[in-house]
């Protein structure tokens, strides 16, 4: 009964939203954007702090807040502007995301950071583009986020690359011939990366012996895991949210699943290891940065600084999932903010009114050396990054396995 009422309400809301958004497919150059006025520049933080991705989204927010304490101002044309963060919660929900994006626009932000989770970013992309406000996605890896949207940029690598990296690790490094895939039905991130993994793994001569899906907010994976076990796959690739990973690992162990569990970038999160304990041992996943990589010297400083920032306040530790471990998404949040500030600073010398459209043009030409590597944007707005890092869970710690370079770039 409740479900029906909720469904009916949701569809009414969706319809009314669709009615509001119709008929304004203006090309990028025509939009006016938001002008910078006064001595404050508002940057929107568009992240989920509740819902399925609430935990990871919060860690990204922490990275952005930390970056804001490091560089709280920017000088443009002789004026020192304070940078104010305007945070909204997109609730990991595609409908709520559009509302959250509109509230950011109406509060007068000139740039937006986020979001964790590709689905919500795709849903809100059009809102930002129509308002002429540029957005930098920090950790959303699905190609559709930036495709066809002049105002969306991103600081991380993409799912096709990530899927290939994991597939080549499984097929070439480990020599697996058979693999199973478990992905979340209707989730752009999960199904996207699963498809790229499948494609790459099959190209490398492997066979996908089980391709299973589960529903959002599913908590019982026993049936799916039994199917995977039965397929006798040598490894199982599970691109999923942190919440799902903490549920699926103990169940896989109890189920006696022998297949090697491979994860995606979301898995770089200590709360998974804390919750799942020894069930997480041996899991291998791809991620965005490694603090010991010498080609990114800023990484070490960031890790130390961010740890100190977290330890200053017990509340921050709680929000970070109960540890002072540095998640890759925090690093990407930091890089996203710094990229935005670098682009703002490059507006120095621009004549006339400063608007968010100027900021977009500055972002397209930005060049910033970040924690997760050098950031310049391609035509589509994606960071020209060619490296992914593989890590493994050993004795409850993340251990660096290898750095994978994209040879097609």
């Amino acid at each position: 009964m409740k479900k029906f009422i909720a469904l009916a309400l949701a569809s009414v809301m969706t319809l009314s939203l669709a009615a509001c958004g119709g008929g304004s497919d203006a090309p990028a150059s025509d939009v006016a954007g938001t002008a910078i006025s006064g001595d404050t520049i508002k940057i929107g933080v568009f992240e989920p702090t509740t819902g399925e991705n609430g935990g990871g989204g919060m860690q990204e927010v922490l990275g952005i807040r930390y970056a804001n304490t490091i560089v709280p101002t920017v000088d443009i044309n002789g004026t020192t502007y304070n940078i104010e963060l305007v945070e909204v919660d997109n609730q990991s929900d595609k409908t709520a995301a559009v509302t959250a994006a509109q509230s950011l626009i109406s509060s007068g932000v000139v740039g937006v950071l986020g979001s964790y989770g590709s689905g919500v970013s795709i849903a809100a992309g059009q809102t930002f583009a129509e308002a002429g406000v540029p957005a930098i996605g920090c950790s959303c890896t699905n190609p559709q986020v930036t495709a066809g949207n002049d105002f969306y940029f991103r600081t991380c690598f993409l799912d096709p690359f990530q899927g290939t990296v994991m597939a080549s690790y499984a097929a070439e490094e480990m020599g697996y011939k058979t693999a199973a895939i478990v992905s979340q039905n209707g989730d752009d991130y999960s199904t996207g990366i699963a498809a790229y993994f499948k494609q790459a793994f099959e190209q490398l001569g492997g066979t996908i012996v089980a391709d299973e899906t589960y529903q959002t907010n599913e908590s019982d994976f026993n049936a799916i895991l039994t199917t995977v076990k039965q397929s006798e796959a040598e490894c199982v690739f599970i691109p999923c949210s942190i919440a799902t990973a903490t549920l699926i690992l103990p169940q896989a162990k109890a189920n006696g699943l022998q297949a090697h569990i491979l994860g995606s970038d979301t898995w770089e999160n200590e709360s998974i290891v804390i919750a799942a304990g020894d069930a997480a041992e041996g899991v291998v996943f791809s991620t965005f940065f490694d603090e010991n990589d010498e080609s990114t010297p800023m990484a070490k400083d960031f890790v130390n600084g961010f740890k100190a920032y977290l330890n200053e306040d017990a509340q921050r530790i709680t929000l970070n999932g109960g540890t002072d471990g540095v998640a890759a998404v925090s690093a990407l949040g930091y890089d996203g903010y710094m990229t935005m500030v670098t682009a703002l600073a490059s507006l120095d010398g621009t004549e006339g009114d400063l608007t968010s459209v100027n900021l977009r043009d500055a972002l397209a030409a930005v060049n910033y050396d970040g924690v997760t590597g050098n950031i310049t944007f391609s035509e589509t707005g994606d960071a020209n990054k060619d490296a992914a890092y593989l890590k493994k869970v050993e004795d409850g710690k993340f251990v660096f396995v290898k750095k994978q370079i994209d040879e097609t770039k």
Partner: protein
Amino acid sequence: MTSTAFLQYCLTGISIGGIYALIAIGYTMVYGILRLINFAHGDIFMMAAYFMIFAMVDFALPWYVSIVIVLAATVLLGVVIEKVAYKPLRNSPRMSIMISAIGVSYLLQNLATYLFSALPKGYPKIDFLMKTITIGGISTSVVTFITPILTLVFVFVLLQLINHTKIGMAMRAVSKDFETSQLMGIKINRVISFTFVIGCFLAGVGSILYFTPRPSVYPLVGSLPGLKCFIAAVFGGIGSIPGAMLGGFVIGLSETFIKAAGYSEFSDVFTFILLIVVLLFKPTGLFGEKITEKV
């Protein structure tokens, strides 16, 4: 499908079905006595999970003490809800009390969101329940294995209680005819409170068995299992305890086999279609009594 796989699916299905059965009994008993569909039941199940987190994580109590506290707190919550939200409406039209139940459901969900935040919280681990055991080719956790056994034991005890004790007789009398049994000197409030005690006790047990192998608790976690158990109760014939148990097992097994066949997106759909089919062809459910309208 090999026979080991088949047995493993069966065990998974019976185990989740057992939990559904325990919760469905709460729906069916309250309906039997009050003719009320207690929509807040799924949320009482959710609150029981938060009580466990409080007891074991925040107060660091050992598991055996925690379980007692959780069951006591859940029972208390159920009885308080009955006294505050249902009792004052006992003589109102039946629709009012049902709307009150929906209100309590939303109240509990939003209260939990306000108090504990919407972020999923980890459910504490009870080590011996999570041990892996292997029987033949089937590997599973202790809790999955003992859930159906516990369910059968509880249903057996409950049936004895209803059929062979004084309070049980009173309950049967009240469910037959509310007003007459009141005239015969049955303390109606005691019987109703007792019904809620049993229903919430079983929801508390179900909660421990459900969340131990699925350790993620958030404020809306009770709503879908709650609906499924309501369907289980309707399927078995609302008001009938063996019916609710059977309904729970049928839904648990069919859900698992649909997922096993690779159609996980249809597992919930099936459950709701089952509700529609039952309502269309056998509205009183498998074991439901035929109600003849008296004029």
